[in-house]
């Protein structure tokens, strides 16, 4: 096929999601945020929910999520996204409300809001990016930082006596009656992305069908924070993150 033939619409096999705009992304090369943004955009569009969706952005690297997805957004204070989403959804029960939060936002400063929104069974989706580090502030220790993992605030490695243990918050949320679907995914391979997108869609369906809170945890990479190349990051994630945060469905009563 020549170029003219290839670019014919009927030969199109892939395109940028309609709901992703043209703003240049601030995310680093190798970061998982871009891919997760993409599948969130695809799910919203494929479900025909773009006019009904309210996104709640966190504080952290995804604070600027509102710059990339062509939907209405509320930028919440650090950790407060589930509280913000609670009100947005309860006051607008027919809308699709989701939060997009990192590990520091969701599992440290916002632990109370996360647990109580889940416990009330708010009909929202929580998209949870777990890259075991604070990216935006320059690579400090997160609640999910692995033992012995080095960060700017645990330069000799995370030490139990000093810092306690990595927090497996999704396992904790499984115990709450209000949660409906809790699953741990990655986006480091094409197959993983396809599977993650399927779970994300299920989560969005749960919220629209008022089945309770769904939490999709994405075990993610932070090349800059980890000081690795994108390729090294993916390998390091598989070898080190996944044993602590194993993939798969933790709970599904949808």
């Amino acid at each position, binding site marked *: 096929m020549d170029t003219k033939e290839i670019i014919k619409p009927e030969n199109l096999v892939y395109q940028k999601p309609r709901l992703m705009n043209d703003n240049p992304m601030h995310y680093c090369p190798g970061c998982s945020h871009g891919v997760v943004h993409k599948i969130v955009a695809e799910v919203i569009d494929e479900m025909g929910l773009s006019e009904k969706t309210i996104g709640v952005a966190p504080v952290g690297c995804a604070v600027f999520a509102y710059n990339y997805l062509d939907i209405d957004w509320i930028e919440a204070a650090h950790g407060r996204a589930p509280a913000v989403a609670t*009100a947005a959804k309860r006051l607008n029960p027919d809308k699709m409300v989701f939060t997009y939060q990192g590990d520091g936002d969701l599992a440290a400063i916002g632990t109370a809001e996360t647990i109580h929104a889940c416990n009330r069974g708010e009909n929202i989706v929580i998209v949870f990016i777990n890259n075991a580090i604070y990216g935006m502030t320059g690579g400090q220790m997160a609640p999910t930082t692995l033992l012995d993992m080095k960060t700017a605030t645990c330069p000799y490695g995370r030490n139990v006596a000093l810092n306690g243990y990595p927090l497996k918050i999704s396992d904790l949320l499984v115990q709450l009656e209000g949660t409906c679907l809790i699953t741990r995914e990655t986006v480091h391979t094409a197959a993983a992305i396809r599977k993650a997108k399927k779970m994300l869609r299920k989560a969005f369906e749960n919220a629209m069908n008022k089945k309770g809170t769904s939490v999709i945890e994405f075990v993610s990479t932070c090349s800059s924070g980890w000081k690795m190349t994108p390729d090294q990051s993916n390998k390091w994630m598989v070898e080190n993150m996944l044993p602590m945060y194993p993939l798969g469905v933790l709970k599904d009563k949808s």
Partner: protein
Amino acid sequence: MPEEIKLMKGNEAIAYAAIRYGADGYFGYPITPQSEIMETLMDEMPWETTGMVVLQAESEVAAINMVYGGAACGKAVMTSSSSPGISLKLEGISYMAGAELPGLIVNVMRGGPGLGTIQPSQADYFQTVKGGGHGDYRLITLAPASVQEMADHVALAFDLSFKYRNPAMILSDGVIGQMMEKVKLPEQRARRTEDQVRQEQTWATLGKPDNRKPNIITSLELDSSVMEKNNQRFQAKYKLIEENEVIYEEINCEDAEYLIVAFGSAARISQKVVDLARAEGIKVGLFRPVTLWPFPSKRLNTYKDKVKGILTMELNAGQMIEDVKLAVECNVPVEHYGRLGGIVPSPTEVFEAFKSTFIK
């Protein structure tokens, strides 16, 4: 039809007035001396009648962020608390000011600092009108002095907060919240429909139709030159509020040789002090700021050549006195009398303090 007059607590009046205003949501956390607000709302179950959402949050912090989320959707939402709880809400209030969101916060003040006491106080004046939260922002502040005003200020605060896209506070205290008086409640208004909100609050995040750009509610701007412009826009708005929304009450001020300046429950006590003074032939007037921000500085300034002295009476160590001194440009002796830690002085006590200060 006879007027519908009821006897109730100030806190209850807030709850009934909120339902009747057509408020869309209340989010709160229990704390003395204001818990009757949420108790009354839960008892009334307005979600069955007007559709108003009422939710007990897990914390003061969550409650104010629920208000932030509801306000972002263009809804008329509120929270209430007392002093220690308001300290927790200040992060959210600063974010609301920064994101230019309307909303009502009620503070039924108690004595501090710290956990303090559950008895009445006015010690959160500075916290409320001088900031409290971070950044250059202002909080529209109404100070009710009766149960009737507790009811009336709900609509006033909501209307002002929507008019200027700025949070508003009703700064009350344990006296006004707990005391019972007769009150005429406002007529029931319908809650606004989503179409009305979309038309009136074009900035609201209610889902983006294909024909407009996304609505984004945020207080974040990393470009300093833009952030300075945002701040200048806020300041211009605050100036407009200062020019247009000042409310005060003057009692026996026309011929007054001395003024007592007091707000809220302290003004109720001071009203009696004026009577005691007049009975002894001393011409005292009461100047009561109803809006604490914007402060009635211009009006107070007109007294600077008329009166011999001003006493501010506050249930604190002397906070509003700073604004009174600025208002009269220190042209008149301004003194303070107050009790601390939840003690409420009697009119006689205040009158004696006034006499020993100015009459000798």
